[in-house]
């Protein structure tokens, strides 16, 4: 049975989605509204990223994450993230602070002047995990108005599920690893054909490009796209704005060097879910993608 009480979250937008890719935010808000998931906006700061501040100053990373966790905690709401980086930081910080009395005391001494006190009473989740809940899937099936018959590849993004012992401690394999499948399953529900490809769990290369070497980051994109083309996959679905940018902008950059390659449209998960509910490409923000999906969508009757 659909339970209304549990379907309310503090919406943690992060930085990249509301600033660079507000179309993902628009699609997510529309989809959640249709599915009865209430989103509460709050003045959060940057998560901050596991790829930047954590690498430079761990204590600052943990304290700023705790500040964000406190704000949701004070409202009595679980945190819903839309980005693999945000979910990685906030889940790990939440895990660390719940587990360690000494770290919690240390962080609370830092936060007390700002009148915050971390207690450890909320959970952090990601939009994919929220949509994958049975009650939400039941509602999605009722709200769906069309299927999207195309071969889709899923790219999960490393920070969404690694390290598994922190991200999915209750779903570990015998070797204490975790192989994500939720996006593949969800997309098959909306009539897509999730297709396996070699090196599916290879990083997109975004942090490498951002911190060290842009060309090296794009070399990883090139490798992944090669494997994706081999399986004649029509499009790629992602759940992280950094992965999205890496594949979308990356293909534009690579096409200047390697002219013969066809481009593969990239979608953010809730854009595909929105399309299956009858939303228009513009409503889910597809008009600003660099790699255009117009032809592909027209071929399945969406314009």
């Amino acid at each position, binding site marked *: 049975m659909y339970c209304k009480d549990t379907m309310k979250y503090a919406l943690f*937008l992060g*930085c*990249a989605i*509301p*600033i660079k890719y*507000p*179309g993902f*935010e*628009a699609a997510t*808000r529309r989809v959640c509204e249709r599915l009865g998931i209430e989103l509460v*906006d709050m*003045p*959060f*700061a*940057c998560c*901050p*990223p*596991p*790829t*930047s*501040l*954590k*690498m*430079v*100053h*761990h*204590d*600052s990373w943990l*304290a*700023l994450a705790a*500040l964000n966790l406190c704000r949701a905690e004070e409202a009595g709401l679980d945190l819903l993230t839309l980005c693999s980086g945000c979910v990685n930081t906030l889940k790990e910080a939440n895990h660390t602070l719940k587990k360690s009395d000494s770290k919690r005391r240390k962080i609370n001494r*830092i*936060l007390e*002047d*700002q009148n915050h006190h971390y207690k450890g009473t909320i959970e952090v989740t990601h939009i994919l995990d929220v949509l994958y809940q049975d009650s939400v899937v039941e509602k999605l099936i009722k709200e769906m108005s069309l299927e999207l018959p195309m071969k889709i590849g899923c790219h999960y993004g*490393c*920070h969404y599920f*690694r*390290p*598994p012992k922190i991200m999915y401690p209750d779903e570990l394999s015998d070797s*204490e*690893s975790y192989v994500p499948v939720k996006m593949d399953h969800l997309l098959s529900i909306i009539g897509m054909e999730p297709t396996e490809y070699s090196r599916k*769990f*290879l*990083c997109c*290369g975004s*942090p*490498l490009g*951002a*911190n*060290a*070497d842009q060309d*090296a*980051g794009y*070399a*990883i994109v090139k*490798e992944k796209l090669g494997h994706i083309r081999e399986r004649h996959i029509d499009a790629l679905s992602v759940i992280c704005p950094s992965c999205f940018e890496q594949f979308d902008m990356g293909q534009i950059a690579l096409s200047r060097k390697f002219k013969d390659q066809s481009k593969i449209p990239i979608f953010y998960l809730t854009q595909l879910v929105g399309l299956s509910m009858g939303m228009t490409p513009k*409503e889910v*923000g597809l008009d*600003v993608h660099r790699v255009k999906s117009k032809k592909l969508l027209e071929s399945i009757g969406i314009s």
Partner: protein
Amino acid sequence: MTVKLWNFFPREALYECYQCARCTGSCPALEVAEALGPRETILKCLNLGHDEVVEDERLWVCCTCNVCEDRCPQKIPISDLLVALRNSAARRGNIPDKLQIAIELLAKTGRSMIVHQLDEMRAHHGLAPLMPVPIDEVREVLKKTKLDDVIEF
């Protein structure tokens, strides 16, 4: 400084490493760039060469994808080691320019992205203006954690 590093990471965990290189064989950064790689990093730390590691720019050539740790048969917390080493490197001034600029932006604005003509862009997607970051609070927290020992802001 070197003493401090091992306060952040239990050095004895490194003795579990038998240099099988499963980590390095799985490293995406090493496939495409001149990275140090986890196996060599651990070996140098074991051989008391961690000063050399902390001063090596290649320490930053990494996807932070955590595959090395995931594949380690000895369950060494490699990502924690890499965070501790890079924190130490940053304290000594070994930090990529791009990363330094990104963190200055974060500390000054509370966000990781430059905000430019944002309201118009959000309106195009039918969205309200973005809620402002509680920047004074953010800056106070980052001052108390002494981020400015490493990055001026």
